[in-house]
């Protein structure tokens, strides 16, 4: 088994996949706490559907690098959704449902009508569940993922205190002179980038699991914002790493294996939280 693993690890495309996977897992976990606490868990889900729609269009138009279309479309949707959330006639969750389901329907429709691919079902399945695409990443995509991940991590660190302030109490932050609107915008852009990155790893249906599971797990065990953030980052990286290795060794699909490991980690954290919480009281 070890030999098999080492053999795989000596291939550059496997190394690439692992590096990209780890980077994506790291940055996808960072904003999980904020999204869960602001009751935005579904935004990740909604955005991934939008990204799916954009990906279909990119595929049909024949863009060589589909990120160029997916990223801007998703960012715009994220900004609109977070903006609308505050003072819209259609309430946040309904708006998300509308946009996401609509985008998905149109994406599949366009793919079906215009696609030249011989294996349509396979293509759709790949976009939705990620399949083995992480191992067949092109060099350009690897670079884009790596650069974007690093940028997301840097922005998160720089805005960490401001993100904390607007997550804990947005009204207080505004009243005491923090430009919450600006930072919500930053938040929206980062979320969109994370979703698009995450889709490469686990596919669009599973990407919100990558965002919220590590955060929810960490919140079971830790009790300060900093420790929760650090723990969810570590947890996410460990889960993604072990998920990828398991999938390489056993031949299971990458995306669902990683998410399954995430779910397992949540169960473990839940039990730990239950025990330590019980002991404390």
């Amino acid at each position: 088994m070890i030999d098999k693993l080492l053999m795989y690890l000596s291939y550059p495309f496997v190394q690439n996949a692992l590096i990209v996977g780890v980077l994506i897992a790291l940055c996808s976990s960072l904003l999980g706490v904020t999204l869960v606490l602001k009751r935005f868990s579904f935004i990740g889900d909604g955005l991934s559907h939008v990204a799916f729609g954009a990906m279909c269009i990119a595929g049909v138009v024949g863009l060589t690098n589909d990120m160029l279309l997916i990223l801007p479309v998703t960012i715009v949707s994220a900004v609109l959704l977070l903006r609308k959330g505050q003072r819209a006639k259609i309430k946040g969750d309904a708006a998300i449902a509308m946009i996401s389901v609509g985008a998905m329907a149109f994406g599949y429709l366009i793919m079906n009508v215009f696609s030249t691919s011989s294996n349509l079902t396979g293509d759709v399945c790949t976009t939705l569940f990620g399949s083995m695409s992480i191992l067949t990443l092109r060099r350009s995509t690897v670079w884009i993922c790596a650069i974007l991940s690093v940028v997301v991590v840097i922005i998160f660190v720089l805005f960490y205190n401001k993100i904390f302030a607007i997550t804990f109490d947005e009204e207080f932050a505004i009243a005491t002179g923090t430009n919450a609107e600006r930072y919500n915008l930053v938040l929206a852009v980062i979320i969109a980038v994370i979703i698009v990155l995450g889709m490469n790893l686990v596919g669009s249906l599973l990407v919100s699991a990558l965002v919220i599971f590590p955060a929810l797990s960490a919140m079971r065990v830790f009790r300060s914002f900093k420790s929760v953030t650090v723990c969810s980052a570590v947890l996410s990286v460990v889960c993604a790493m072990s998920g990828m290795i398991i999938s390489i060794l056993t031949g299971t699909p990458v995306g669902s294996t990683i998410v399954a490991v995430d779910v397992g980690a949540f169960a473990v954290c839940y039990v730990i939280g239950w025990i330590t919480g019980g002991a404390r009281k």
Partner: protein
Amino acid sequence: MALLTVKDLTLGYDSREIVSDLHFSVNAGDYLCIIGENGSGKTTLMRTLLHLQSPMAGQILAGDGLKLNEIGYLPQQTIVQKDFPASVSEIVLSGCQGRCGLRPFYGKEEKKLAKENMVRMGVSNLAGRCYRELSGGQQQRVLLARALCATRKVLLLDEPVSGLDPKVTADMYELISKLNREGITIIMISHDISAAMRYATHILHIGDSVFFGTRDEYLRSDAGRIFLSQKEGGENT
């Protein structure tokens, strides 16, 4: 010049007027209680003073070198905060966010300020504890320490004692009163008429009739007499 001057203010939302032609001013060192029935616009007034929403008409002027981001605010607790994983020191420190501007991290000065205010509110022994595991009174003290990090001059308090037991309520009022004696101007929304009468220097009553003046004037006024007798009647039954 007064710290805050409100002129011809009309409040409301969705083009529905709640209060119109409101006039009052707050001087440094005042202890103003805003009272009135539920739905009379107390919270709307507070949100307008904090620039969380814009007035339908009229002006709010700040004087005495008070900048708009130098107001401390103790909001009513939100649902989000009830299960927020954050330590006490993280929360108090976040009160300094306004003075950081674009600077990404807190400096020595902010950390010192946060520490001082934790000591001032008697929560420094809780610094590493998780906020959601504290009692209601402790949580209010933490939020008060955070508000003090944002201001040296004015505190706006929205029902600071709601949900607290009588003993903790009394402590909370004493604490607020102590801050007032130390020179911080207090503007407080309250349901608790007897406490308002005991601690406030000025009363703003909004509702069907609007009254603004000192506490003694209020006790002598028609609006005050009617409201007080109603309240007492209500409490006795």
